[in-house]
């Protein structure tokens, strides 16, 4: 099996195009934040708080006996952060900002297509899964970050995430093309197995989605700070970014987003580790041997398990749980960059 040089070249061209388009999307998101106004959201969230705090009013107001279609009334406990009023609004009612935001999303989608094309042609050029070395792994992970964002956007109004998604995507791709780049080549025999498809693919999807979870946790911490400042009557001077933070969804909603993403992906990450163990059993004769990569996968797994538990424990919810989720994500980052580059182990065959 050789390498189709033309396709490999084409893949590189697509990658650079994708980076350029993501960069444009990034600037568009920045403009959306800059031109948007915070007024509309502030007003709306004020309305919202009244509604939530006075359930009796809601119950009475739900005098639905007269309606043709009985409507379900939700009280505190029935809400789950998806309410229309608590979605975050970057544009904040400013039409120009809203238009720019839409352009930014379109650019993200276009970048995604180019990016996907690049990964695909890279794979076809060598007729194997396009995640055999760090360059390929990084570009695939970045692709999954964007995919996770677009998938969320399909169902939920999460345009506020756009700016924060393009940032790690651009960083990852930048590092990939400058530092990690290697020419398209065939694999060392150790990687020549169908488990490469399953094990590495699930690790890539997990890593990509955990990015979103971590972003939501970071934003949660900022937003929580903002909400505390708002609630503090002795404070007269607003924080530096308060007008921006006002446009994010409520901290409760951000916390839920982080939890949902992490909880959905945790079983997949477990699956990725298990597949790795099965592959290790096939390749090296033991399913678990405390190789550095295995050690750090274990640490990452335990850290995410701790997050899921922390979030269900009184006294750990909120800030502490978010911190744990960020520690877990840092473990994942180290497991990838740190272990591959600085630690010698059985997983270091793929080259940088």
């Amino acid at each position: 099996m050789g390498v189709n040089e033309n396709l490999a070249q084409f893949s590189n061209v697509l990658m650079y195009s994708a980076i350029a388009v993501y960069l444009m999307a990034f600037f568009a998101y920045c403009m959306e934040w800059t031109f948007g106004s915070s007024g509309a959201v502030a007003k709306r969230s004020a309305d919202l708080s009244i509604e939530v705090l006075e359930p009796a009013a809601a119950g009475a107001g739900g005098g639905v006996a007269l309606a043709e279609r009985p409507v379900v009334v939700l009280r505190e406990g029935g809400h789950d952060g998806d309410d229309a009023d608590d979605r975050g609004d970057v544009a904040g009612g400013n039409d120009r900002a809203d238009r720019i935001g839409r352009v930014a999303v379109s650019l993200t989608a276009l970048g995604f297509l180019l990016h996907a094309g690049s990964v695909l042609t890279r794979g076809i050029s060598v007729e194997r899964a396009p995640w055999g070395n760090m360059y390929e792994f990084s570009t695939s992970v970045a692709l999954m970050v964007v995919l996770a964002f677009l998938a969320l956007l399909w169902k939920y109004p999460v345009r506020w995430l756009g700016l924060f998604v393009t940032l790690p995507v651009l960083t990852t791709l930048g590092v990939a093309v400058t530092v990690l780049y290697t020419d398209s080549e065939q694999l060392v025999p150790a990687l020549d197995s169908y488990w490469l498809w399953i094990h590495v693919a699930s690790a890539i999807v997990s890593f990509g989605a955990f990015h979103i979870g971590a972003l939501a946790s970071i934003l949660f911490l900022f937003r929580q700070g903002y909400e505390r400042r708002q609630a503090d009557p002795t404070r007269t001077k607003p924080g530096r970014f308060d007008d921006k933070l006002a446009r994010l969804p409520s901290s409760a909603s951000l916390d839920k987003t982080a939890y949902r993403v992490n909880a959905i992906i945790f079983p997949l990450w477990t699956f990725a580790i298990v597949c790795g163990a099965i592959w290790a059993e096939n390749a090296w004769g033991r399913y678990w041997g405390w190789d550095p990569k295995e050690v750090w996968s274990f640490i990452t797994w335990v850290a995410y398990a701790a997050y899921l538990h922390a979030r269900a424990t009184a006294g750990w919810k909120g800030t502490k749980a978010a911190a744990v989720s960020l520690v877990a994500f840092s473990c994942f980052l180290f497991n990838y960059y740190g272990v591959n580059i600085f630690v010698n182990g059985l997983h270091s065959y793929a080259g940088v």
Partner: protein
Amino acid sequence: MSLETRTDEDLARDDDLDRIAVPEARADAGMSTAPAQDEGDEEIRQPQLGVVGWLRWLWRQLTSMRVALILLFLLSVAATPPTLIPQRPVSPIKVSQYFRDHPDRAKIMDKFQLFDVFSSWWFASIYILLFVSLAGCIVPRCWAHAKTLRAKPPEAPRNFARLPAYARWETSADPDAVLAAARGALKKRRFRLNPTADSIAAEKGYARESGNLLFHIALFGILVAFALGSLYSVKGGKIVVEGGSFANVLTQYDDRQFGALVDADNLEPFGFRLKSVEQTFQATGAKRGEPRSFTAHIESWYGHEGKDKSGTIRVNHPLEVGDTKVFMIATGYAPEVTVRDAKGKIAYKGPTIFLPQDGNRTSTGVIKVPDVSAGLKQLGFDAQFLPSAPMDQNGNLLVDPKRGPISVFPSLLNPRLMISGYEGDLGMDSGIPQNIYALKADKMSKFMDGADVWRRALKVGDTADLPNGAGSITFDGVKTWANFQVASEPGKGLALFSVVAAIVGLVLSLFVRRRRMWVRAVEGPDGHTVVEVGGLARTEGGGLGDEVQEFVDALREAAPANSPGTKVKE
């Protein structure tokens, strides 16, 4: 009433449903390993605790979520030292290197088992505590869940309006007809029902807690599998040169790690002969020389009378014999030489295993010749083997100025054997086992070529005469060797079963939503039937409102809402 003694039923009947959300969310948040408990209570009682009381307090602490969380953290922190400190089971050579470089520090670190973290007492105590803590809350939860599974959903609260999701309307339909329709609709949605005279209580999503318990129980399965593995696993290495063979008995292993309870006399009775090793390498481009495929062609047999069976062993494709697998983990070259002593007798003939030193398989090895004719000094050779030696235009060997002679490609394109020799006492008769890859030269003298060390570079077929008529050495050819790892891990079936169960449990416990729904239909004072529907999410996760709304919409067919002013039916 303390939170611990409040049952689900109490809670649901309690009119003050405002408080439901708090305790329920805590005990039921899905991932919790500990039953909800009131920590404040304990502190007050502390002064009067006796021994039993203290033990109980300790047990409560150990099985609390907070301690479980701390143990989880400790476990991940305890797993980090191996990133910085070499570990004996993974890289024993690096450990000895560390002992040479930092003897004092290494001794202290060794006392704390820092070179074998994953079998150290402190790592073990963390995970054993964690598992005890886990057992301490899984067992009571299993009981509680078994009870819940047999119990009926709790009856409807008096005041529906305070439930998190609520709908109320009036209809002309008969209350019984409405309830019958509600029963059907709830059954279709796979709710478990508890119908009473004027209302229905329904609940679903029991699989959430079942899955959660399954996940945690499966963790014990993994622990047992690990224990079985460490007691009964067989793992050993053997280097076989082309033409050579291996039989699965203790003495044949070059190195081995057997579990504590392995019966070494009853290993799986099989063996194989290595016919040839086929290797290919990338020939061009930036990754020139990187391996592309390794295949060992073998003939294997099972039992003493077993017939030979041809087969191959490749990377990722081990030979499987019973529970045992044979993996090929490395390959290298074994130059074949014939050494004659001063009397012309053949003192050594055959392949010698050389160890590769770089990606292009520049290999080093030693040839020991103890069996020389009586009265002669023993011979030894320090050698370097280059599978593809670089040549200049005149056919002279190109030598790297820094690293000396090195190979430029890993396959046998231009093999050269570079040797220097010794004569004297090899020290092999002392009875102390020797490293076959190193020459003990303290009782030997180096062959000299005038003032310089005697060195020769041999092509295949070349013969070099040793100085002072000490004999000769002939480079006959090159064979390839393969390093095989023989492994059997008895716990792996259980481990696989457990992790599959764990993942299934995890998916159920994270994705199934537990819901309660109540429907009440009674005749109001004005003759209309008042229908009330209430919903309660017992676990986090969106969509309660949508779900209840969807149910209400389904019920409208049987109980259409009266428009304002509808006449009371007679």
